[in-house]
């Protein structure tokens, strides 16, 4: 069964550093998403991406964040100048049709120290 692959599974970074979280969506999917889940809290939408541009973003997704699809397979989330409160699980998701459910990756656990 096709999977969304995320790397690394766990990233530890010092406060103020930049991190890039990587995702390989399912190959025939057209819509890509990043969500985050702070420990013990609900999954929160960050951003959606379609046709090489952001289609929607939440209030969380401020100038500290950016997304990119650098080639035909990867979809990245960059977090600049990380803060302690950025520590969370970050999930990438994709789907082939905006009106359908997503396939989520297993997530990257980001720990900012």
């Amino acid at each position, binding site marked *: 069964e096709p999977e969304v692959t995320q790397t690394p599974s766990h990233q530890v970074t010092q406060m103020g550093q930049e991190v890039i979280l990587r995702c390989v969506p399912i190959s025939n999917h057209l819509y890509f998403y990043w969500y985050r889940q702070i420990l013990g809290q*609900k999954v929160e*939408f960050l951003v*959606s991406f379609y046709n090489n541009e952001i289609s929607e973003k939440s209030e969380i997704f401020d100038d500290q964040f950016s997304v990119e699809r650098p080639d035909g397979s990867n979809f990245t989330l960059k977090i600049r100048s990380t803060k302690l409160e950025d520590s969370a699980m970050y999930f990438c998701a994709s789907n082939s049709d*905006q009106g359908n459910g997503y396939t989520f990756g*297993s997530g990257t656990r980001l720990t900012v120290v």
Partner: protein
Amino acid sequence: GESVGLHLPTLSVQEGDNSIINCAYSNSASDYFIWYKQESGKGPQFIIDIRSNMDKRQGQRVTVLLNKTVKHLSLQIAATQPGDSAVYFCAETAGNQFYFGTGTSLTVIP
């Protein structure tokens, strides 16, 4: 903003019994709903979905019921198994992004 919440944060059931997990949503414009299962350390896994033009949908051992009048969604799991132990989220959308509830932790007692 939208509010999606769950009535019970935890649920314990005996193996073999049926489980019912409930969810309330506040956005009357939401037209698509999904139940996800999340096991520890893993991403949300799609279980079943339902669109607002339906009030019931069945899958393998799972049934989702939608009551748009009271903005309530439920997930029924038949013959619950130990492998069903996980956190279950409902998610709703009126467009592109999904709004997730806080989750109900289901524990199946052998």
